[in-house]
C-alpha cells in the first residue's frame, strides 16, 4: 500500500498517524515508572503518558533534568529552555545516564531509530553504499546520521525500551548496517554475553503498528495494527519476513481523553503535521 493512499485515508481520521504512534507508545508507560525520554516524539509520548494515565510517572531526560514538563511546545532538545523552565532539579549526564540508567534504576526508556532490525537493534549512525553494510573494514558512510547519543546507554541499561520509528521498508532491515544501540543483537540470549542490566526492547511502536519480541528467539513479530493500517501494509513495509502473532489485534483508537492530553503536551501541534 502506498504512502500516498495511506495519507489520503488519514484525512478522514480525527488524529494523525504520528499521534497514534505517540499514544500507542505512551500506553506502554506505567504509573510510577522511572522513565527517560529522548528528544522529539519520544518526549511528547512520555509526557503524554504523564498527562493522561500515569500521573506518578517519574520523568527525566538524559540532560539530568528532573520534575519538568515542556512549556511552550515541543522542546528543541533535552536541555531546551522549554524543558528547563520548570524543573525541580538539574544535574548532569553522568547522573542521568549513569547513576539512573546504567545502574538499572530506570524502568523504561523511549528511543528513536533511523533503522531497526528484526532483533530490535537500532542504527542511528550511518547508511553505507551497496548492501548497506559497513563491511569488514570501517569505511565512510554514504549518509552520516546522528550517532548514538544516549540511546546506546538506554538500550543497555533501561528495564525496558520502547523504540519509536516511522514505518518504511528501508527502515526495517533484516540486519542493520551498524548497531548504534543494541536490541537483542543476534537474538536469543545474546544480551547476556555482555551482562546488560536492561531487559532490551519490549516493543517497536511505529506509524503503522506495534511489534514485540518473541520470548525465546527475540525476533520481533507483529502484535497489533492501527485502525487505519493492516497486516498486509505492515508486512509490505517491513524489510524482513515479519511473523504475525496468532493473537494479533487492532490497537484501540485514541480516546477523546487521550487526544486532549496529547494535544495539551504537543502545544505547537508538532504531531498534527501530516
Amino acid at each position, binding site marked *: 500500500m502506498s504512502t500516498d493512499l495511506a495519507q489520503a485515508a488519514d484525512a478522514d481520521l480525527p488524529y494523525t498517524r504520528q499521534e497514534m504512534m505517540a499514544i500507542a507508545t505512551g500506553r506502554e508507560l506505567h504509573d510510577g515508572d522511572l522513565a527517560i525520554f529522548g*528528544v*522529539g516524539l519520544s518526549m511528547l509520548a512520555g509526557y503524554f503518558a504523564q498527562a493522561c494515565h500515569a500521573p506518578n510517572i517519574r520523568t527525566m531526560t*538524559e*540532560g*539530568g*533534568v528532573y520534575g519538568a514538563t515542556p512549556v*511552550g511546545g*515541543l*522542546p*528543541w*532538545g*533535552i*536541555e*531546551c*529552555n*522549554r524543558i*528547563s*523552565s520548570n524543573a525541580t532539579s*538539574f*544535574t*548532569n*549526564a*553522568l547522573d542521568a*545516564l*549513569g547513576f539512573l*540508567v*546504567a545502574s538499572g534504576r530506570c524502568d523504561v526508556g523511549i528511543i528513536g531509530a533511523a533503522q531497526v532490525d528484526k532483533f530490535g*537493534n537500532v542504527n542511528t*549512525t550511518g547508511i553505507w553504499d551497496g548492501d548497506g553494510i*559497513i563491511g569488514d*573494514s*570501517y*569505511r*565512510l*558512510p*554514504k*549518509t*552520516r*546520521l*546522528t*550517532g*548514538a*547519543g*544516549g*540511546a*546506546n*546507554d538506554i538500550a*543497555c*541499561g533501561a528495564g525496558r525500551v520502547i523504540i519509536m520509528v516511522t514505518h518504511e521498508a528501508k527502515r526495517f532491515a533484516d540486519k542493520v548496517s*551498524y*548497531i*548504534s*544501540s*543494541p536490541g537483542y543483537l543476534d537474538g536469543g540470549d*545474546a*544480551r547476556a*554475553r555482555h*551482562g*546488560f*542490566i536492561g531487559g532490551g526492547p519490549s516493543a517497536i511502536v511505529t506509524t503503522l503498528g506495534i511489534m514485540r519480541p518473541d520470548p525465546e528467539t527475540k525476533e520481533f513479530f507483529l502484535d497489533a495494527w492501527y485502525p487505519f493500517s493492516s497486516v498486509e501494509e505492515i508486512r509490505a513495509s517491513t524489510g524482513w519476513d515479519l511473523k504475525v502473532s496468532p493473537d494479533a489485534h487492532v490497537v484501540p483508537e485514541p480516546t477523546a481523553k487521550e487526544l486532549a492530553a496529547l494535544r495539551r503536551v504537543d502545544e505547537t501541534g508538532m504531531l498534527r503535521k501530516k
Partner: protein
Amino acid sequence: MSRNKLISLAEAVERHSWDGMQYASGASLPVGSDTIVFGRELVRRQRRDLHALFHCNTQQLNLLAAAGAVSKAECGFSGLEVFGFANGLRRAVETGQLALEDYSNLSFGLRLLAGALNWPFAPSTVNIGSDIQWRSAFAPDETPARHKIPTVTDPFSGREVGALSPLKPDVAAIHVSLADPLGNAIMLGTEWSRFELSRAAKKVVLIADAIVDTACMRQFPNLVRIPDIIVEAVVYWPFAAWPQSSPGFYDVDEAHMKAMNKALATPEGTEAYIGRYVDGYTDLDGYLDMIGRDTIEQLSRTGTAFLLDPFRQWIKTPEEVRALASGDAR
C-alpha cells in the same frame, strides 16, 4: 586568593589555541550552553587540524567542521536534536575530510571522568556489544577494533566489561552563565559534563554571559561548580552561545539554527556564512548588532529568566566589566 583573569575573547583564543590541539567544548548539548563564539574566533583565525572532543556536537563543531578546521573528532552524539543532522559535520565526515570516532553520551562522559581522575581507563557497561565497540574511524582497517574499547575482566566476578580511554583535552572552552573575574563560575540549567570537563582539561577558558562580584559566589558556594583554582582565563561575552540557548538569559534562535545549519551543508553556504557571521563583527557591540537588537530582545524574553533573579544584584554592567578587564576587550 586568586588573580583577575578577565581577558578579551581575541586574547583568549590567541593565547589558548593552536593548530593541532585537542580542543574540547560541547560538554554541553546541541541546543544549550556552548561557547559558539569561541569557535567563530577559531575560524576567523583559521586554526587548522583540530582534534575536537565534543561530548555532543553543537553548532560550534558544525561550523568548525564545515570550515575545514577539524581533522579528527570524537562525539557521543553528532546531530542537532530536533534541528536534525549537523550538515557541516556530516559533510566533513562523508567526504572523508574529518574522521569521526563514535561514543555514546554516557561513555563520553565517563571518558572525561577517567581523564579528571587520571585513571588509565574507566569501566563501561555500555557501548559493548555494539558497533561503537567494534568499529573505529581512527583505525579503519582494524575490524573488530581492538584498541578502542577493549575489554577488562572484573577481578571480583570474572565478568568482562568495556574499558574506556580517558580524555584530557589540551584546552576546554566552557560556557557558563555567571563568572567572577577570578574564574569562579555558576552554570544554570543542566551542567551536562562541564563539571567533569573542567577537571579533565589541561587548560580551562570560561566564556560567561555575565560577570558578577565574587560576593555572589560566597553567597552561593554550592552553585560554584567550577572554582577559580582550575581556570586560566575568563571571557565576558553576552550571547556567547547564540544561536543556541542559555537558561536564564536567552532562548534558542530557531530561525538562525535552521539557516546556519542549511548554510553549512555546502562549501559555498559555509563561505557566505563565515563572511557574514564570523568576519561580520570586530567587537562585542558589533556582534550584538549582527544578531540584531530586536532578536536579542525577543530571545531574552525567555521563560527561564526567573532563574537569574537571585543573581541579578551582582551582575556587572558592560562598562564595569570593561573597567575590570586586564586586557583590551574587543
